[in-house]
């Protein structure tokens, strides 16, 4: 402190002028440098994210051969198709059910991990996070094989309990169940890790105080844990909602939308129409229907993120 106070006096009178021009130069250099450093990022986002996003709005207004402007014709066509409404319904069922179960299982497992002595937690956490680490395309293949119509290992095991062969991917209701099951298997570890981090950040004193006041375990969760974790729960759920809503890999590999389009969600149906059916404008219109839900989730996430930023 003393050094800083002394230095200007020691250096003398010739300093101010040089210092200001140096400062100006530094300022100039600083903003140019900062701009140059962010330029690749800006170019990348502008060219490969923002431009395509708006381009898909344009694409959605063209006819199949992309030569004629049809306005909202593609959307009109979609609204008149039953398959479209089926896809809307399935996307919502898929995303909401999967996220709810992921959140519940993640919450429960996080509590169990938090419950055991700290020494063993690492090992358990390591094992439980494996589903999240394996590329989903690879692990879905393993599930596909577990669900195989004639060699299913699950049906083999269940047959000992007298439960007849289950058509895991062959029947509409079971196929929906299977797709959700795999998604929950893949996503629950993410929730577990997030909640575990949040649980660790809850001060022990709060639980001690609650215990002294005679709170039972349920009251401790309801009045201490949940309010303290509210932010993390909200952000994790919204994140997961976006990712699950936009899911492609699992449905594509497990059922490819079948049987009879009964497991198609927006992403897989857009792929089927836009790439496989080479009707790019219609495919673009289908995937645009993800935007409203993503936007709502994004607004809430952003609100939470900014709130957290202000608190810090």
């Amino acid at each position, binding site marked *: 402190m003393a050094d800083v106070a002394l230095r200007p006096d020691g250096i003398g009178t010739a300093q101010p002028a040089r210092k200001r021009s140096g400062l100006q130069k530094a300022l100039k250099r*600083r*903003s140019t*440098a*900062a*701009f140059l*450093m*962010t330029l*690749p*990022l*800006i170019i*990348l986002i502008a060219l*490969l994210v923002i431009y395509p996003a708006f*381009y*898909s709005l344009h*694409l959605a207004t063209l006819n199949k051969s992309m030569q004629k402007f049809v306005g909202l014709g593609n959307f009109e066509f979609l609204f008149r198709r039953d398959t479209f409404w089926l896809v809307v319904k399935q996307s919502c069922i898929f995303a909401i059910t999967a996220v709810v179960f992921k959140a519940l299982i993640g919450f429960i497992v996080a509590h*169990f991990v938090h*419950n*055991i002595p700290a020494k063993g937690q690492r090992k358990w956490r390591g*094992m*439980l*996070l*494996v*589903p999240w*680490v*394996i*590329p989903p*395309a*690879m692990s879905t*293949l*393993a*599930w596909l*094989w*577990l669900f*195989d119509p004639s*060699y299913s*290992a699950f049906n*083999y095991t269940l047959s000992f309990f007298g439960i007849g062969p289950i058509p895991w991917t062959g029947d509409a209701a079971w196929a929906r169940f299977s797709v959700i099951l795999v998604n929950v*298997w893949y996503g629950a570890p*993410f929730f577990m*890790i*997030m909640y575990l*981090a949040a649980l660790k950040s809850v001060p022990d004193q709060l639980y001690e105080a609650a215990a002294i006041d005679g709170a039972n375990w349920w009251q401790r969760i309801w009045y201490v844990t949940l309010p303290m974790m509210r932010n*993390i729960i909200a*952000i994790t759920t919204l*994140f997961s909602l976006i990712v699950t*809503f*936009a*899911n*492609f*890999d699992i449905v594509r590999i497990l059922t490819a939308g079948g049987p009879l389009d009964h497991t198609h969600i927006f992403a897989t149906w857009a*792929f089927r129409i836009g*790439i496989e059916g080479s009707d*790019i404008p219609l*495919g673009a219109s289908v*995937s*645009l229907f993800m935007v409203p839900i993503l936007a709502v*989730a*994004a607004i809430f*996430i*952003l609100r939470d993120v900014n709130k957290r930023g202000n608190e810090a």
Partner: protein
Amino acid sequence: MSSVTIDKAAPTRTVKYGSMSRDRKWALRWSYFFLTLFAIFSLLPPIYMLITSLKSSAEISAATNPWWVFHPTLENYVGLLTSNQFLRFFWNSALVSIFVVTITMLISVPAAFALARMRFWGSATLATGVFLTYLIPDSLLFIPLFKVFALFGDWTGIQLINRWYVLLFIYPTLTVPFCTWIMIGYFASIPKELDEAAIIDGASWFQTLTRIFIPVALPGLIAATIFAFTVSWAQFLYPLVFTTSTDQLVLPVGIITTLIKGDVFNWGQIMTGALLGAAPPLIIYAFLMDYYIAGLTAGATKG
């Protein structure tokens, strides 16, 4: 009055103590029980991959107990690792991932530094924008991007579609926003005194970045690198859309399009391929679990 309450409280207290420790013991047993169940659920598919990969196709089609290997064989591994096609997929995946990680780091580290430290016009908006980009999923962009690259090919004559290197342009849209975002968090947590000291000592901005920020934020850098690698290794939708020739495919798409021929599923080889494809992320995870988890949680907790 007070003496009465103390007398009454004393015996119940001791009883409660005993029951609490017993409760605790039972809670622990239940925790282990359920954790074991969940661990079995989590590890079932990878273990089943391993079991199947050790079986010959004769054993698989004989429909014996699927959970046990009666005649372990490495023929699936030998078959895949000597097949040029599979090695090509592996090589393509490795090449794409390594390049994408490099590109991502080169773009996101300087950008995060500028956004975290050198406040300039619009920097706060840009930081929020980066975060929003991270929320835009691949399944929204694949159709317009496909068209954009097709048009680019028509205009310039440079055909990028169906070349593995087209993925080098596309994958950064997935990795850069998140990596920039977590690096902003790590850089912002570095005390200002540190870089002020460096500036006073006459360091340029570039030197401050390479000599102070990168070494101090190394854990964050490792976490971001792991994230970028895992994402580019696991990505499935973009390579499925953009590449079709067998010599241009990356591993996940390669396994699915070449090992599944019509209705014939060569499950022994598919599971071996899936296990080998899952191996690099799993190995990284086994050795760098803490960084992996740091990167995972940083996304939401640092935001």
